[in-house]
């Protein structure tokens, strides 16, 4: 009985999930290139930021290149 009650309570819990994965290749001359993906299960309708309504609940893929001196 208690287990069923606990399970029902847990079922009502809403967890936001944020996941990311990144891959970077760096060379000895200080150049790095890479990319990363950020994903979330949040409801994009509930996660708007700023006056421009930027959706911070959506998935993103970012590519980058950088040079360190």
């Amino acid at each position, binding site marked *: 009985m208690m287990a069923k009650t606990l399970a029902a309570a847990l079922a009502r819990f809403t*967890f936001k999930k944020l*996941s990311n994965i990144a891959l970077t290749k760096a060379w000895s001359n200080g150049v790095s290139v890479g990319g990363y993906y950020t994903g979330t299960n949040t409801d994009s309708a509930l996660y708007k930021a700023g006056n421009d309504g930027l959706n911070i609940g959506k998935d993103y893929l970012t590519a980058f290149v950088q040079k360190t001196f």
Partner: protein
Amino acid sequence: MPALQGGVDYAHDSGFYLGSWASNVSWPKEGDAGAAYSSGGSLEIDVYGGYKTELAKTGITLDVGALQYYYPGRSAPGVAKLNTTELYLSASYGWLQAKYSQVVSNDAWGFGKTASTGKADGTWYGELNATIPVGELAKSPSLTGVTVIAHVGRQDFSGSGNSIADYTDYKLGLQKSFDNGVNVGGFWTTTNADKAAWSYDGQNIGRSTGTLYVQKTF
């Protein structure tokens, strides 16, 4: 070798959260100078959990939690373990953040009890971070999307003989974000880390560096 990293975080509406992050790493192995591992030492797995909440509608967010750094493998003889357990507390207000982390395990990233050094529990890192939205604050169209990033941190190792690794680090950066998802920026980092304590493969990893970058988000 490319670096592959990934993580997943779960956050509950109550403020409790759990997460994990992993990356391939390359600790020096037996035969290398400053060898930390006999075998393994090529993976880092971080597991953390905590509680984050706003302090009585003040706009101040408090975050308290624990973090376990785990590096599978067998330590080199006479070297303290790299596995480290940390407790942390941070306070954020707008674009400002202050954070304090303290090691509660006997060893901290290879510093700890050996024939010549003492236990490293009590090792701490304190930091102040600012991500200043200059464009928003100045309300100037020409500065739209401009952000200044500033950081100062202090690492202090506990235990006799470990203080040679203490350092203060600084970072100052500038980024411009465009509406099309392109970010361009640069940052400068420096430390006062002891060169002998923080050299790897003949390179001083605490030296000053400047970095320029271009990002595109899709």
